[in-house]
């Protein structure tokens, strides 16, 4: 379990970017951190593997205080995939990019495992290409492939769907589901409401560095578009229709319907 306790953080010693944020991240669960630009989402997740140390409050990862534990030790448990995947690439080929990280975390048979990972993520044809020559979506899926290779316990994704569609989006979904089914926890920072509504999970909305909303994805559908808009979120049309159907008594709860509507919407988009 990761416990974020009354976390305050300031970059410059002046204004606080995080204000008294508390959060528990439990294995097997999925968490969505939402909020408008500059609300402190990335700053919050940088605390989860000890890259940033709290100005006030504390963060405990499986009982280890991040202030007293080296980042390398925490990084093995908490894997963070950052917004811009390019900043992590440095090896000449895609395959080496994966295996070098497996080696860092002491995975057995790193080379063989790297080949498997390539296949799992549909990246085999780029095996010997330089990561920098991949497309935006390919870079992103590669960064996710790299950061899940050693089966970390907590997987943190910062805006994972930007530039991903079709096949790669499905691979991302698959990676998330596999991680959850193995008992890991997933934390997703996103503006993508479709991604949020695809799974039952917990929702935390940040605004100005404070937690302004806590709840479940189901309840999010009930919030009116204006309120969501204030947090920089857009309600997908199909979510609007499902909530309309619920208020008018056509369906009793959302469970299952959102997925169906999302699929219908997807099909309609492609017509």
């Amino acid at each position, binding site marked *: 379990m990761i416990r974020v306790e009354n976390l305050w953080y300031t970059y410059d010693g002046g204004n606080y970017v995080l204000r008294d944020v508390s959060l528990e991240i439990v294995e097997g669960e999925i968490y969505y951190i939402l909020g408008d630009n500059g609300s402190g989402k990335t700053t919050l997740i940088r605390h989860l*593997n000890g*890259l940033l140390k709290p100005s006030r409050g504390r963060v405990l990862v499986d009982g280890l205080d991040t202030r007293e534990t080296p*980042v390398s030790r925490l990084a093995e448990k908490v894997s*963070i995939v950052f917004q811009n995947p390019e900043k992590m*690439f*440095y090896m000449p080929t895609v395959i080496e990019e994966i295996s070098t*990280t497996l080696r860092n975390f002491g995975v057995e048979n790193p080379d063989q495992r790297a080949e498997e990972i390539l296949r799992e993520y549909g990246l085999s044809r780029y095996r010997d290409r330089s990561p*920098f020559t991949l497309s935006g979506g390919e870079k992103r899926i590669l960064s996710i492939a790299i*950061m899940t290779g050693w089966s970390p316990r907590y997987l943190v994704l910062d805006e994972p769907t930007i530039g991903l569609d079709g096949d790669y989006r499905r691979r991302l979904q698959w990676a998330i589901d596999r991680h959850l089914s193995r008992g890991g926890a997933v934390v997703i920072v996103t503006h993508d409401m479709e991604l949020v509504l695809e799974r039952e999970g917990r929702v935390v909305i940040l605004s100005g560095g404070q937690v302004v909303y806590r709840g479940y994805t189901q309840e999010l559908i009930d919030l009116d578009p204006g309120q969501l808009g204030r947090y920089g979120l857009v309600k997908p049309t199909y979510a609007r229709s499902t909530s309309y159907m619920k208020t008018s008594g056509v369906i009793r709860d959302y469970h299952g319907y959102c997925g169906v509507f999302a699929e219908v919407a997807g099909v309609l988009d492609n017509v």
Partner: protein
Amino acid sequence: MYRIGLEAFRFEERDAALYRLDPRAKLLVAFIYMVLTILVNSQAIQLLITALLLATLLLLGRLGRKLVKNLVTLAPLMTLVFLANYLVSGDPMASLLPTQKLLNLVMSLNTFFLTTNPDDFAITLEKMGMPLTITLAFSLSLRFIHVLARVLTEIVEAQLSRGHRLDTGGITTRIRNYTAILIPLIIISVRKSISVAETLELRGFREGARHTPFTTMKIGFWDVIYVAASLSIATALLIYGGAVETALLEILTRHLEYMAI
């Protein structure tokens, strides 16, 4: 810990007297102090210059916190200069002089750079007759340093998250660890500079182009006072340096005696 110390040298808007002065006046004063620092070889007077610069930065610029960060970042370099001189000369007091000069040079530059928006600096250069291409290059590079510092922090964070250890292991591990930072840094900065060039082109920038500055500058009463005060102090110190030094030394030794008793 690995956060880049460049922040300490960056301009940040603030409401203080020094920030409101004309950039040209500030540049001139910084220049006067630098010349003075270079010419003066008396340690007592260097100390006086440090005090004057400190007063300027603290009272007129309200830069206390920033100055501390700034000097902490510089401390290793100053130590290095001191040690290098000490190894050559073997005299600790004499080795202090170059260190003092370095300190005063940096503080002189601070009176200008910490308090002047890079854009205003570019306009200043332009007013002094520099071609637009050069002034633009200047202000872009100043901004770029800040962008790169951020990119660098993010790269370091990404690599730490991948399990890289930056400060352990043998020579080969260390070299490998540093390539993990240098390669993305170089590629990203080259890309960024190409996109800046493309943007300039798209915006219709070409050599020899004329433009109308967005802001205008005017020398005011306080600018004149600021320059005149610094200039007279500098001239006085250069001309009456000997007398001032004797007086200063006398005061200093008397203080030391008091403290000893």
